[in-house]
């Protein structure tokens, strides 16, 4: 995934109107980062941990966010699109009929 906002699970925001807004948003990102590294410590998944850290560094403060927006040339990936769509998904329990069809029948 190339989008640091999606990787940290925070909404992308580039135009904080006041310094306080920016500071508040910095804190939101920091908390998301801490949660992400708690969920995925380096000893469990080094690659993922590095991705999370790089994502945090890319958007940790207002200047970093603007810099990322200006200079990041990475192409968005299908994974980014799925992450964007998935944010609105409401996981649901499958119907018993669907379950029965997957349990039985021809594979």
């Amino acid at each position: 995934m190339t989008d640091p906002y999606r990787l940290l699970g925070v909404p992308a925001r580039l135009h904080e109107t006041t310094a306080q807004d920016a500071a508040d948003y910095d804190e939101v990102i920091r908390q998301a980062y801490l949660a992400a590294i708690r969920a995925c410590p380096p000893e469990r998944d080094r690659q993922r941990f590095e991705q999370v850290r790089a994502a945090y560094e890319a958007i940790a403060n207002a200047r970093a966010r603007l810099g990322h927006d200006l200079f990041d040339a990475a192409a968005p990936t299908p994974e980014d699109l799925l992450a964007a769509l998935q944010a609105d998904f409401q996981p649901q329990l499958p119907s018993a009929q669907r379950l029965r069809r997957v349990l039985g029948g021809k594979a």
Partner: protein
Amino acid sequence: MSRKAKDKPGKSPPQALDIPALVARAEADLALAHYKEATELYKELIKRERRPLWVDGLAACYAGRAHALADKGMLKEALTLWRNRQQLCGKPLFEGPYLAWLIQAGEQVEAVRMLADLSLPGTVRAELETRLAGILLDWPDDTPLALPAESPLLSHRAAALGALRASQLGDWVGMNESLAAIPFRSPYRDLKPLLKTLALLATDRSAAADAIARLPSNSPFPRLAVVLQAAILPDTRWLGKLSELDADSRQLLLDLKGCPDALRPLLLDLARLGEKPHPETWFDYLLRHRRQLPAGLAESFCQRLLPHAESRLQAYTDAFGRLPQVRHMHLAALTVEMRGKRAPALSFWERMAESLSNDPTQKLRAALIWRRLSGIDIAALSDEDHLADSIDYLQRSVELDPDQRETQLRLISALRGQGELQQARGALERALPRFPKDAGLLLEAVQVALAGKAFKKAAGLAKQVLELDPINPSVRQLIGHALFSHARKLIKADNFESARKELSAAAEWLRAAEDISTLNLLRALTSDDPADVGIRDAVAALGGGLAGAFHLALEAGRVGRNVNALLLRGGVNLKAAADAGAVVALARVVEATREPEKALRAALLPLRPLLKRAVAGRYAEADLSVICEAWLRAKENELLRHYAQVALKHWPQRPIFVYFKAASYAGNLYQMPMQLQDQLERAAEESHASNDRHTYQRIQSLFAALDADLSWPEDGADFIDPLDPGDPGAAFEMLLRMGGEETLFKMARQAMGNAAFDLLRKQMGGNDKNFARALIELMKDEMRGIGMPPQPAKPQPVKPPLAPAPRKPASDIQRDLFDD
């Protein structure tokens, strides 16, 4: 001709063979997996006599053919053969893979009917029941189940269906109760880990993963297991599994993820694209599905893809309209930058920053662009202009975003590096009120003060740094060195009393052994001890020998003392022979000394004769490498050539020594002999072949410098024409700059004759610089007087000039890349 006759010419039909011949051919064909032929032969044998061995042979033929067909996916045909095997050979149906093929072929009714066969052995029945558990759960309600009443498939089915219904409702308590009613030997037993995984999926993925890990590999519910395993994958990784699933399983996975029905075709299409689709394919996908995607998403993704899928610009415009001008420039800058086209990228960024600078809401963006441009991006364009441009960009950035400390620091540092101390001080004055307690900025202020030789001010500032950062080792050294510098200034003015005070102050700050030795040497220089014991002790402490002598000579230059006299006072014997170890030690000190080359060369000057003699010593290859590096660093070209030559005698063609020898022509590269240039080319090839990248790069840099040095036009007229015809000396000035004094002397000698040349040179008292100036004046006069311009000497070899890469206007590139 029939196929059979064509395939097997001369083979007799089975009916024509006797029994031994039939047996031999049947066994041979079976062994060769020629099942069809072997079947005919065994059938003929059985027709004549039904021996058990031949019946087994026929059964093996059917089994072999059935397996071969099943492997090709022809399950129905495989099942037919298996049934023939039962009918003709009396083998039980349930042997081998029959049950699995039945289920795979979708013949559930037949599979269930088998369960009614009371003759089935217990183990086979249990296996069949397990295999049929899934089928039984999906058994149509209107189709009767012809199963024995005691079959667990029947008796536990209600509990299994109850668990499924409860899970649909999220009734986990009810589900667990139903699952508890399923005994652990039941054919439905594997529903337990599966439904528990389902229950945990939304709340505890880790526990869900543990639950599904308990599912045995031969579970009768592999399809549900695969779906659940995909569903517990973190983030978006489940998408990769989507295209591997069958239609029902895909829909189940999308149910679990909560994907709306409208988005399902789009996601299936997305899964087929793979992880890294070609940018243009990916762009086309987004365009195709833009109406199903949330508002703005396709547009934003397509914009970010444009630098990678340049050819889709028109398609983008058709779908979303024209890009705003600044965004257009932005994407163009990213596009050309990604393609390594620095000059047009720079131009686009500059235009974008100019445009944003005028918008009060976009100043921060503009500042970031200017700041970025001050970095490495323009380094490759022109070294000469790079620093000046960098400073300009940094100034623009600071103007728009003065709160960015790092940019302020970079600007001050760059100004200091350029010797623009007044501007650096101005920038500091503007920056410090914003960051009054910033140790980094104060440290930079110390450096600026030191560069301006304001030693006391530097020491005062350094103390401020230390108040903020008490364990900062570099600032301690800076204070000490600042005090050293001031002390040297005082020693130079023979103000020893004040110098001693400065040195005492320096002693409070410095800890490193080398600094203490320097301190002692400076103290000794302020002492009036006629025996110079202090100087001698300090020289010994600084390594003694050549290394100590070098330190002393360096210090003599700093305090404005006569080097030879000071060396004598320090007990340095310049006439003694130096061994290899002493030369290596000196080389290491030279390498480590952070002084300008001029100071290094001045300190090495009195040692030069001694070092020339020492070239005859015995050196290891590594020693000579260290020594040559030091001479290269100090631009001691003569010594460098001597030592490189000695190294090449012992290790001929060694690339690094060829490089050192060639580098000794620095400043006069055009004088490098052709033979050495050829050697250098071979050294480049060899270093490249041996993966010695460092040497290879150094040689390439040397070639680039050589090309630049030799970039004389083929015809000298082109070179001279642009010069001012009213200034006949201009050509000689140019010749002096390009070719050096020796070239000018050579030409003058030819023009004047040896006697006149030598006489004039003698009159100049051996000062080549003055002699060169005098020659130019003389030749200018002669040209004016006689009207016969002496021909400028043409250095060898002649190569075409290297044109510097011009900065193309952005508009040209934009026409190529983004002209819509």
